[in-house]
């Protein structure tokens, strides 16, 4: 369903992704693990038509996302790592906007929005503007929105970041159900090893833009002699801590927060 071969992405001199290859089968849950800045999000951006690769080939359901954008976009849904909501709109409006863009028929749209907002316990606050939401609520809304249409492939880029255990549990139960009932292929990244072990059929570990190991959780543990996936992960990627540069986006957000504080 997803095929990546010899993918390379450079930003100037910096090599974000260095010649990686992997396949994800239809109906599979595939976890992409790696330390910060390893190239996970860059890979997802290339797969979801947001970025063009420097070289290498990418295939989504037989389509090339860097050429057949629109056909490819019809195949997948995505929950982004960083915020992608409109703060001025209400939760319901954000959901509705998404549903219209993805051509979910009106009646089904209403039903699904209601059931998803109820599932993630946002229904009572559906008419409040998103800017009044807490961080956790925004995250829940992003996830609910990502599940509004039923795509063939679902990308989840660190979906559980900042979520409480209850919501994490809801999310993975729902994702597993989608995978089992509707054969949705899932491509996920996470920093929580136990989540990857619980839901993923296969795991690839990426570090410094290269895939250092792939296989089932069991295989990875055997390969490294670790008792848990976490130990296997650390054995493969080392224990130094990586820093990502504070991007202009983060600076911008803190500026906007200052603005808002000044106004209110």
């Amino acid at each position: 369903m997803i095929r990546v071969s010899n993918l390379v992405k450079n930003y100037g001199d910096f090599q974000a992704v260095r010649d990686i290859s992997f396949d994800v089968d239809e109906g599979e849950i595939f976890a992409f693990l790696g330390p910060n800045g390893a190239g996970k999000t860059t890979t997802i951006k290339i797969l979801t038509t947001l970025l063009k690769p420097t070289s290498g080939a990418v295939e989504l359901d037989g389509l090339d996302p860097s050429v057949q954008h629109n056909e490819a976009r019809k195949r997948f849904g995505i929950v982004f790592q960083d915020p992608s909501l409109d703060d001025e709109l209400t939760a319901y409006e954000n959901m509705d906007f998404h549903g219209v863009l993805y051509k979910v028929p009106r009646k089904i749209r209403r039903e699904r929005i209601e059931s998803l907002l109820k599932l993630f316990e946002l229904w009572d606050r559906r008419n409040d503007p998103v800017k009044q939401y807490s961080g956790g609520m925004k995250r829940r809304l992003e996830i609910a929105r990502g599940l509004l249409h039923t795509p063939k492939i679902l990308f989840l880029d660190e979906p559980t970041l900042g979520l409480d255990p209850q919501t994490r549990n809801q999310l993975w139960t729902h994702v597993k159900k989608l995978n089992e009932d509707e054969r949705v292929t899932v491509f996920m990244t996470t920093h929580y090893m136990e989540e990857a072990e619980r839901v993923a059929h296969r795991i690839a570990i990426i570090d410094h833009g290269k895939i250092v190991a792939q296989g089932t959780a069991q295989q990875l543990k055997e390969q490294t002699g670790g008792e848990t996936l976490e130990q296997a992960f650390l054995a493969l990627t080392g224990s130094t801590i990586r820093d990502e540069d504070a991007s202009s986006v983060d600076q911008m957000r803190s500026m906007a927060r200052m603005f808002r504080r000044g106004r209110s």
Partner: protein
Amino acid sequence: MSAIYILWLRQLKRYLRSKPRIIASLGQPLLFLVALGFGFGPIFQRAGQGNYIQFLAPGVIAMTILFTAVFSGIELIWDRQFGFLKETLVAPVPRILVMIGRTLGGATVAMIQGLIVIVICLIAGFRVTNFHALPEAILVMVLVSIMFTALGTAIASVLSDFQGFQLIMNFLVMPIFFLSGALFPLTNLPKVLNIIATIDPLSYGVDGLRSALIGVAHFGLPLDLAVLSIIAAALVGLGSVLFSRIQL
């Protein structure tokens, strides 16, 4: 079609929900009307050019549309910074439709602001002399709105943050306004200024409004409408191309 509609609706909702923005954006036209209109009025009169408020009002209306439209287009940078742009860029909607929806939304907002400023001008003493040409006046306003929203979108498509914003304001938007004949007649100008005013697209918007509303023309309404239509179409085209090339 539904994609264009929902993008248009979003722009409109954002505008209607930010009351401070609506009020703030009316301050500048008011200042121009009062300070310049009443300040320069006596001199203008003595120079034999008639009532300055009559002359200035179409310029102030065009100015309002210019600034609102460019800002609406440039709002794209906010969407990029706050992440919402990703949501629209991965949706299975051709990017040209996303661009058109946004542009129509921004243009509608600029139109509304323009209409509010007409009312303010009427209160300040502006009198429309050509009521039968009101449809043409509206058409000019629509074209100017679309043209500059598309320009703002085109600019925002190549800027990734607000670093270049002041540059755009001071070296593009301000000159477009000040050199357009919004504030002074285009007759008997120094040669260089005359050339600049002739290639400034806003000159045709201001002139179009003046011919339609008070029957005073420099280029003439047919030429104004032709130039505005061509440039608006070109900028929508340019904006679409640049917008569809965005990578995040």
